[in-house]
């Protein structure tokens, strides 16, 4: 049973990937009477030219999506930000600093040694996303196993189809903020 307030405004950030999780979750949350809003690459994607310039200097992909994602959050506001990628988690954490809104992070790909430090800032972004979010949840057993092996973290597993589970989690996060 959801302990979240009714009509919760949930921003589902997936500019850095994880669109399937966001879509599945949005449908489930809407069915429960909440007001989810998916913010993906079409609304908050990376800026190709700047992205190419940063990539040439070895930076992690997707950094240029952060300002557009922040603008999208500012437009409509929200009660919870749910990030589906490490880049989205940076946006969410910035937004929390501005608006004191809880951040839930659900990595859409399993953490793996090959990509955790593969580019400049990659490790910093991953560390912040996993350490600083109010809640980090694995959407699959693969993600949970990757977090255990490479980050020494034990994550709770909530399937993206379990909207009630996520709504309850949002409620707990709001209580703690």
């Amino acid at each position, binding site marked *: 049973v959801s302990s979240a307030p009714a009509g919760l405004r949930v921003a589902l950030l997936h500019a850095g990937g994880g669109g399937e999780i966001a879509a599945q979750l949005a449908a489930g949350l809407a069915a429960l009477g909440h007001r989810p809003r998916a913010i993906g690459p079409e609304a908050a994607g990376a800026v190709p030219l700047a992205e190419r310039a940063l990539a040439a200097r070895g930076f992690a992909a997707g950094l240029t999506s952060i300002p557009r994602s922040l603008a999208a959050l500012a437009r409509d506001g929200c009660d919870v930000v749910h990030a589906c990628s490490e880049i989205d988690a940076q946006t969410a954490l910035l937004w929390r600093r501005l608006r004191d809104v809880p951040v839930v992070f659900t990595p859409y790909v399993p953490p793996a040694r090959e990509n955790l430090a*593969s*580019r*400049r*800032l990659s490790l910093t972004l991953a560390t912040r996303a996993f350490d600083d979010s109010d809640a980090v949840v694995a959407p699959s057993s693969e993600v949970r196993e990757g977090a255990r092996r490479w980050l020494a973290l034990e994550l709770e597993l909530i399937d993206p189809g379990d909207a009630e589970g996520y709504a309850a989690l949002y409620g707990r996060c709001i209580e703690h903020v």
Partner: protein
Amino acid sequence: VVASHARRLRLRWLLNALEEQTCEQAWEVIVVHDYDAETARRVIEDHPLTRAGRLSHLAIEPGTGSPSRQRNIGWRAARAPLIAFTDDDCRPEPGWLAGLLAETDGAETTVVQGRTRPDPFERAVLDAPHVRTLDIDPVNPYRQTCNMLYPRALLERLGGFDEVAVSGEDVGLSLRAEAAGAAIVAAPEAIVNHAIESHTLPGIMRQNLKWRHLAYLVKTHPEFRRELTAGLFWDREHLLVSLALAGLAAARRDRRALLLTAPFLVRAMRRRGRRPAALALAGAELPGLALRQSAEVAGLAAGSVRHRTVVL
């Protein structure tokens, strides 16, 4: 033996790589660290190597550690006759330990150095202007402890690492080993992948400050001076930037002295390649590079004064 500080995630990755070792002989891992109990539990105690009885750890008080001290604590706690060292920013290949052991001959005077290369997983980071990594084709003069194997008996005879040394303690140990009759042999198949870490300019300048203590190494091991460029400079880059600085200083009196900056400028401009885009990038990076290398030379000059021997 692994000394670890402020790298809990990379330590975890190292332990994962050690778990995949193919070595069939008995071996154990000892980590000496200054992490809090909760971090140690998550990263080390809950690791599969601990459950397999192959991993143990020793915690020291935060702020009391140094690579030398931690490695000494580690090898003294070890039970094996051969001690392999690696670092917490490294990822050994599965055949690493077997590769090191293949070059040992049972003699108490055989020291083995493996090959270290920038981690292929992190190669993109090399595009950053200020990076730190290691690329070692054994045997090199510096005998970095990220990939070395010493007989325990030799370590006992030498008293281990010099804990007074802030940097260069690994070279110092190998020089004392050679003086005691040891031979350093290469193990090119024992591969360790070293992290490639990108830093800001102030960050890398701060980190490189520790190299000023290399003067202590040269003071205590004068024979190492033969490895220095022109017997005075730590490396060729330091020679070139010193020449450039001298040229700039002398140019007030004679503008021809500016020619002394040419070798540094040519080398710096070619570091990214010779295509127009690479030259433009190198040009953009030139001020930062000059500042960083000048700071390194200045640091070594300060260390030279402190330790009363000149190394630049």
